[in-house]
């Protein structure tokens, strides 16, 4: 399969996912988009394996590896720190009464906002990965030119 064919298939899958997302919102069924997302990614991976005119050599692997490691090193700390706080807030732990009032203080973040922040963090991870990928690509000579 040619590289351009792969990009075409990728675009079609993205469009279908967008449609499924809209439909799952309409019918209030988040499971539908979750399953569709997983299937979509699996299809992209399968299609990518069929591409023949792209050579993925050891330098590409090195760039991907370094970018992934650095992204995860930063992302998991931020994501886990926020998620632990969010879980504690959701489970109301610890529920110590404040100053003997017996009343639980108001939620710092409502659950919906926690979801939005987690979604934002996931988007941030993608930007972080792209940033690191550009950095390592530059470091390992991706933007070098010669006189040939």
């Amino acid at each position: 399969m040619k590289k351009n064919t792969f990009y075409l298939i990728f675009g079609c899958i993205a469009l279908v996912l967008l449609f499924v997302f809209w439909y799952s919102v309409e019918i209030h069924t988040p499971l539908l988009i979750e399953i569709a997302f997983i299937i979509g990614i699996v299809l992209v991976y399968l299609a990518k394996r069929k591409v023949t005119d792209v050579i993925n050599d050891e330098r590409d692997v090195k760039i991907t590896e370094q970018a992934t490691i650095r992204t995860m090193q930063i992302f998991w700390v931020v994501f886990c720190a926020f998620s632990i706080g969010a879980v504690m807030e959701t489970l109301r732990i610890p529920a110590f009464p404040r100053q003997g009032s017996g009343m639980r203080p108001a939620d710092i973040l409502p659950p919906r906002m926690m979801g939005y922040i987690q979604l934002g963090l996931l988007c941030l991870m993608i930007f972080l990965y792209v940033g690191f990928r550009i950095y390592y690509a530059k470091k390992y000579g991706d933007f070098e030119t010669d006189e040939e």
Partner: protein
Amino acid sequence: MHNLTQEDLARAIGVNRQTILAIEKEKYIPSLDLAFKISRYFGVNIEEVFVFDEKTPTIADK
């Protein structure tokens, strides 16, 4: 010397042209496997193509 382009060499040893360019510009240190492939392609010993320099950081250092 061999009247060879980077593209030809890259295709012959199964890497991208950019990888050959990066090795030439000392931006990327090839694996032992790739270094052997390059030297074998030219029919010379690995030491004739690559010079080990103590001061050069290894990939692990990078």
